[in-house]
Structure formats: C-alpha cells, structure tokens
C-alpha cells in the first residue's frame, strides 16, 4: 500500500534534518503503529506524507500503490486515497461542518473524475455515519470544529475519514486530549473502517490506544529513524520500560 524508502527530510526554513532515512512498508489490510519519544520525527513523517508545506525532502521516496506521492499537491494525495487525522484539528468559523464535508467528498470525486454525490445521497450517508460516532445533527450544523470539545474534534476527524473512505489512513496522536470514553468511541470508529484493502498508520505516545486499536506491527522511531520493528508486544515493552532501554540497545 504505502512504501517509504530511505526518506530524508529537513525543515525548509532552517538547516535542520528531521527524518534521517525512514524505511517503512505497509501492506493492505494491516494496522501499523509508530511509537517514539518526543521529537523523534513521528508527526513530521505524517505531515510530509500528507503534503504539508515547510519541509524539504532531500533524499528517498514514498509511493502509494506504486505511485510517487511526494511531488503531488496535498489535495491530489487525498484524492489518491491518503488521509491524515490531525492531532490538532483546525477550527474554521463560519464554514458549516456539512458544507465542509460535502465540499471535500465532491472535490475528491471530481479530482478522480467521478460523479459528484447528490445532496440527498450525501445527507443520507453522513447521517448514518455520524450516528455511529454519536455525532448529532447539531454538531453537523455547527462551524467546523468551532466550540467542539477535544473528543468531539477527534470524532469529527473519524467522521471525515468514514466519509472520504481513504485507502491509507494516518492517525497522528489521535488519543491526545481524549478521555477513556471518547477513546473507545474513536477506536470503534477506526475499527469499523478496518478492512483488507485499507491500511492504517497509527502514531501514538501511549500503548493504551493500542489496547483499542490492535496493531499488527509496531515500529519504534527515534532521532528520525525507525530503530526497531516488532509485534504488539513491543508496545507493551515500551509501556513498561520506556524508551531508554531501546535507545541504549541501538546506541
């Protein structure tokens, strides 16, 4: 699904190397988790893959289903099937959540030369998906993320994911700012989307999210590289011992 080869990335504005040769191969249907200490480059990886400005790829490549994505615009990557659930979803006052969702769904369809979704069909689909995430009509009507609690913002991210039906989903610290109930709800939303053709990359600091979204593979990232890859037990090891032991192992 997503292949990242020897990815080197620096900040555009300053001479600071963030990613120093990331290699990852994510197969269809799998859930991969990336854990790592602060500043290891996890969020940068998610931003570079989804097309945020301010970074410069100095070496390496990333391919989505065999197609290079690093030269694409952010919207083209989205239309190609990539989705980033933001750690801090952005508030957009004055733009209704429904308007935003419908614009996004139809913009992607247009980019893929598909027929746009009619207003009626869209309404039917969004209502059903919103219900599963306990998002009420009021939340759909309000401005995008404005006045939403931390949990509501993350549920709204998952609703967008459910509506856009991406192939490759990157979740950037989706558990941050969530209480236990909200984490369950969000995880249920993610789990409902798991299928053999969809891949997840879950970035998190804590093992507890992975109790709800069970990963197939766990990677540890430090200092701009993947330093260790293993099964779900690797996450438990980190939970118990922290990163210090792992960092020493490779030092």
């Amino acid at each position: 699904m997503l292949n990242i080869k020897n990815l080197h990335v620096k900040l555009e504005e300053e001479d600071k190397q963030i990613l120093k040769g990331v290699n990852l191969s994510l197969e269809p249907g799998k859930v991969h988790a990336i854990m790592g200490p602060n500043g290891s480059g996890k969020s940068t990886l998610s931003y570079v893959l989804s097309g945020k400005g301010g970074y410069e790829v100095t070496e390496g490549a990333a391919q989505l289903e065999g197609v290079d994505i690093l030269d694409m615009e952010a919207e083209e990557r989205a239309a190609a099937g990539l989705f980033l659930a933001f750690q801090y979803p952005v508030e957009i006052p004055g733009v209704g959540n429904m308007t935003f969702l419908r614009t996004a769904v139809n913009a992607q369809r247009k980019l893929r030369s598909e027929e746009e979704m009619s207003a009626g069909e869209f309404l039917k689909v969004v209502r059903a998906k919103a219900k599963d995430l306990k998002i009420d009509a009021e939340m759909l009507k309000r401005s995008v993320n404005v006045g939403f609690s931390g949990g509501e913002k993350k549920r709204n991210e998952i609703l967008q994911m459910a509506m856009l039906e991406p192939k490759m989903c990157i979740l950037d610290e989706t558990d941050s700012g969530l209480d236990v109930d909200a984490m369950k709800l969000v995880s249920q939303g993610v789990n409902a989307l798991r299928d053999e053709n969809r891949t997840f990359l879950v970035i998190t600091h804590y093992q507890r999210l992975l109790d709800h979204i069970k990963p197939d593979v766990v990677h540890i990232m430090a200092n701009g590289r993947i330093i260790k890859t293993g099964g779900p037990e690797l996450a438990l090891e980190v939970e118990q011992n922290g990163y210090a032991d792992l960092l020493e192992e490779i030092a």
Partner: protein
Amino acid sequence: MAAPSQQKVNTRALCDAPLIESSGVWSKEARMMASARAQASGLPQRRDEYWKYTRPDAFVHADVTLQASQRSSLGLFDQRATISVAFEDGQIQAAALPSAAHCTLESLSSASGLDLHWARDIYGHLEAAGQKPVQRSLAAVNTAVAREGLLVNVTGAVAAPIHIQATSSGQSDSTIHHVIKVAPGAEVTVIETGQYGARSNIVLEVDVADGGRFQHIRVQDGNERHMLTHIFGKIGAEAVFKTFTLTAGGQLTRNECVLQLLGDDASVSVAGACLGDGDFHHDDTVFITHDAVNCESRQVFKKVLRNGAVGVFQGKILVKAGAQKTDGYQISQSLLLDDDSQFLAKPELEIYADDVACSHGSTSGAIDVQALFYLRSRGVPEAKAIDLLTLSFVAEAIEEIEDSDLAQDILDHLTNTMSAQ
C-alpha cells in the same frame, strides 16, 4: 497640487434654478440651507484628516461616462417576497410605487413639489446634524440637488422587505436621497442592490423612533463605478438599527455611516464585508455617538483584498458625558491575499462617561496556512480552500444580519461570486 476649481463647490449646480423653482416650500427650504452648508464648507480636500486615506478628487472628478459593468447581484433575493422599487439611471421606474400595509412609499421627485410633507422634519435635518464635528459637504451637496429618492413612512410592522434595485446604463451621474421614518414600535427591512450610476452620491436618512426596528442590507456591485454613500441615523429609546453592506466590485466606494443614539437602551450595528480585486478602493467611515444610557453599538468590518486592492476603515465611537453603561464594540480586519494589497485603519474612541465598556481591534493577516493545509488534506483544491477560508473570514460580519434567510442569501451570493471569479 489641488486645482482652484476643487476649492469651491460649483455654485451653479447648487442653485439649480429649475429644481429649486419646481420645489415645494418644505424641500425648497431644505435645499437652500443645504446649499449654504455646502458652500460654507467647500469640497473635501486631500489634506483633510477625514479624507486621509481616500482621495476626494477621485470621486469629485470621476469619469461619469464609463461603460456599465455587469451586475453580479442580479436575481439576488428574487426568491424572497419583497416590495420592489426599481431605479434606472437615478430615476424611479414606475408611475405608481407599490403599496404595502403599514407603510407608504413615495418618490422624492413627486413629493418634492408639495408644499408640505412628513419628510420635511427629516430631509436634510439628519444630514445637517451629521456635519458636526466633521464636515461632510458632499452629503450637503446631495441634499441640495438630489432629484430622486425613496421616501418611506413606516407606521407598523412591514411584513416584507422593501427592495430597492438599482441599474445603470453607465452614462449616469446619480444623486439620490432616501428618507425613512420608522414610527414608535414600527419595523421595516430595506434592501438595496445594484449600482445607481457610473458615479453615484447616495444619502439615506433614517429616523427610528422609540421601540422601532430598522434593518438595512445593501449589496454594492458593478466594476467601473465610483460611489459615495452616507447613512445618517437618529435612533430613539429601545430602538434597533442594523445595517450591513456587501461590496463586491467598484473602483471607488466610500460608505459613511453617522449614527446618533439619542434614547436609552437602544442598539445599533454597522457591519460590512468587501471582496476587492485589483483596481478597488473601499473606505468605511463610521461615526457613532452615544448620547443616552445603556446603549449598545457594534461595528464589524471585514475586507478581503488582492492584486493591489486598498481597504480603509475609519471608525469612531463618541461617548458623551452621561451616556453611562455604554457597550461599544468595534472590529476591523483585513485578509490580504497577496503582498500588493493594503489595509489602512484608524479606530478611535472618545469617551466622556466613566461607566462604559468599549473595545476595539484591528488586524491585517494572510490566509492561515494551517487551515489551508487542513482543507487541502481533505481533497479541497487550493483555490476552493482559499474561498472557504475567505467565507470563514467574513462570517462574523454576515452574522450581524438579523434575518437568517437574508443572511443565507448573502452567503450563497458570496459563494457564487467567488466561484465565478
């Protein structure tokens, strides 16, 4: 260097003999007095502080023979039931104006010839009151020579909005003077769309009596035009006055709004949004005087500027001694879509009472890159994402519109205007 002809008002124009002769007693008196006011103060000059950011000669010497540009607001509000009044090149286009319950509609051209008229207590009087502390001689010129306008006497709650639709062939130089009188407890909404002329000087005098409600929504369009508008409002106790202007074209627009809160517990809102692209100069100049207790005033202005467009805001809140419990709010913001555009703002507060809350703010900014990335990461192309963020930026001004249907119409119109660009 100013030419000598700019110093003096063209007195021949102000002693328009046929106009004065055909005027009835009430309007003749108002016109003569306005003519004297205009001649005493002279035309505004570039060095005038009140015209610091907008060149008055750009209006005074504007070309009035430009070809008309397309109206973008055509069809706007068509799906709403309105009381429609059409102006074409400054003339009301109907032998008989529509009639509606709880109000009478008349044309200035016909009422002007009468000896006596209800408008005599307002016509030119609110404009004259608005000449202090800053002279607005072009408004006085308007009172002196305006040949047309709509006179509305509102005596109860008018069910549908009165919709003034102006069109121009482009060869016109229009001077229009509207008068609206809202009786105690009466209510009316007035909508103005289109362009009156290649150059237009528009005055709107509104007298809202105690407990009255006046809502005004204006859409200014047309590309090749120069427009100067003045709203003079006198607001009584517990009355509500709201005006919103959307400007989506025009080389020069200066909208002045001069309001006096004279009765306790009244509230006013003056809001505007503009989309400026290229040869576009847009000036909002507002002066709100609080002269009563426990009144609220709001000024909310949002300007989106690109390709060298210029936005100006001069807004003042004057709180007179004794106007305690005043709640004044003023925000003016610009969204600069490139480095060539500029926003010039002069917010002012002058307060002589000690128990008041007044806040003001002014900002200039570019598109929020984080929000832009958020939208694009969802598949929204950059241009469309910028449109959405532009809508987001102007939303606070549109929210000042009380009627949610009309606000939605404005929002839809904005969306369509942007996607057409």
